[in-house]
């Protein structure tokens, strides 16, 4: 975990240095060589690359991600401020998508011969095929522009001072992400359930006279939940990326907005800060998923987790 973090941090540094000299984003067309030198000195990019790297790592440990080129605010402060939007958006959407996915996926597998089972299967097949921003556009058109019941976008200026106001503006974005990630997750739940319903231990438990619900609860859930957890961890990361896109549909001032604006304005410290933060977040989520899996499944404690992951992706 620490090794992956160190690797990711280094790779990001190298890649972002390859992105071209950030000085050119700061100066104008008529800049003289002196101007360029002055700007380089101000940014510290005229120093040897190893000194810059040491400086960057030192900054990371202090939680210092530099200063934005365009707003001249501290990047880490800006990220923290924007988490006020992105974190609730991600977590509420994720919770809702799990609430949607588990019954939909389970019924799609269990009642696969009924019409609603088939319908749920079809819905879950659409998951991962619908662009999240398109769902956003459709929901805005329906609920905001035609029915006028919810705001089309934006976030209250006073942040969470009025929680109801803030929640109202998050309703459509949350629905958008939850529909898409929920149907995607339902696909995994469906195949996990199908897999379990075929297993011998379930048949044995039923043969021993256990009612179906008891067998399911005692044996199937404990066995079935393990692969689902690693999917949940991946899905949480996907939801976060979904939030990055959806923030742009609804003009929400979150991390995604900061990232896209940063790319457009070539504001390298902002881009680097957000990407770094997201990378660390994704890695930490994955790590926690692994830990949780090991806690729940004694068989995994001794074996390598790497083999399982290959199977899952194959």
């Amino acid at each position: 975990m620490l090794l992956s973090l160190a690797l990711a941090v280094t790779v990001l540094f190298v890649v972002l240095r390859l992105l071209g000299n950030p000085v050119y984003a700061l100066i104008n067309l008529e800049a003289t060589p002196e101007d360029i030198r002055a700007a380089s000195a101000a940014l510290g990019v005229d120093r040897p690359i190893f000194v810059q790297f040491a400086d960057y790592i030192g900054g990371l440990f202090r939680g210092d991600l530099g200063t934005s080129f365009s707003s001249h605010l501290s990047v880490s402060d800006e990220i923290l401020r924007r988490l006020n939007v992105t974190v609730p958006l991600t977590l509420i959407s994720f919770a809702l998508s799990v609430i949607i996915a588990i019954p939909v996926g389970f019924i799609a597998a269990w009642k696969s011969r009924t019409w609603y089972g088939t319908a749920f299967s079809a819905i879950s097949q659409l998951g991962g095929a619908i662009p999240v921003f398109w769902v956003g556009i459709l929901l805005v058109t329906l609920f905001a522009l035609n029915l006028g019941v919810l705001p089309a976008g934006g976030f209250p200026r006073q942040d969470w001072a009025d929680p109801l106001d803030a929640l109202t503006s998050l309703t459509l974005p949350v629905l958008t992400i939850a529909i898409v990630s929920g149907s995607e997750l339902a696909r995994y739940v469906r195949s996990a359930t199908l897999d379990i319903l075929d297993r011998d231990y379930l048949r044995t438990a039923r043969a021993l006279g256990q009612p179906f619900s008891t067998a399911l609860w005692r044996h199937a859930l404990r066995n079935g939940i393990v692969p689902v957890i690693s999917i949940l961890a991946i899905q949480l990361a996907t939801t976060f990326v979904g939030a990055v896109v959806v923030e742009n549909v609804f003009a929400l001032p979150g991390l995604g907005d900061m990232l896209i604006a940063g790319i457009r304005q070539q504001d390298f410290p902002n881009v680097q800060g957000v990407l770094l933060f997201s990378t660390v977040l994704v890695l930490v989520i994955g790590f926690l998923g692994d830990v949780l899996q090991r806690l729940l499944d004694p068989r995994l404690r001794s074996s390598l987790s790497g083999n399982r992951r290959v199977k899952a992706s194959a």
Partner: protein
Amino acid sequence: MSAVMTQGATVRGSRRRALGSINLVVGGILLGIIVLAAIVSIFWTPFDPADTTGGRLADPDGTHWAGTDKLGRDVFTQLLIGARLAITVGIGSVLIAAVLGILIGLLAGFSTRWVDDALTSLLDIAIAFPTLLLAMLIVAWRGASLDSAIIAIGLAGSAVIARLTRVVTQRILAQDYVTAARIAGTSTLGIAREHVLPNLWPTLVVPAALQFGGAVLAEASLSYLGLGSPPPNASWGRLLQEAQATVTVAPLSAILPGILLVITVVGANLLADGLREKLDPTLRRAQ
């Protein structure tokens, strides 16, 4: 395994194979429609994509089958060109992912334990890293264009291909016939070419088909965010972004590109599912 169970597995197997053919056919038809549109767009479009003489936001009629956009450009023309871009993105990024992924995977599979471990842990990070974030990084570096998007998405996909290639390579290298070939004096490159590469195909074709759909979606997201290819040769994602502002006046422009995207991706996913059912060796054994 008892006789009853084997029989059960066979029945289930044949049902799944039948399902696989349905998936293949439906997926093939859906994707075929888009490919056809893409090919047609190379030779013919009703209007020039930059032609703005159609009048602004016109409703669909005999001349403009899907109406016009806010600059007076024909929407149907743009949809056709969007199909070409989607297919280009899909094929281009899958090719990049395959070539790069197979090379890295072979390298990891053939090399010493140490190099293999290092490559594998790098690949793990790359797989965990969301495609879209990687794509944004590359767009920030190279600027927004179709090439940037294809390269970025291809790079992101190569990690999964590399991981699978490595596993298959190691499995094949452990076979007796490879040892025999080695003793007979076949070089490492010869073994890779004659024994490993031909055996990769069944494992890689399903993830490649899945990546095709994923690539089209990822490019649409990039374009929607203004980080894809610029108009007039705009992808469906960009069309949706432009249509969002005028959705109350011209709802069709905000619906059609989305439907086409879904058709493309569902088509590719169904094709992948169908191929999986056909190629799954555990099912073939039950036959």
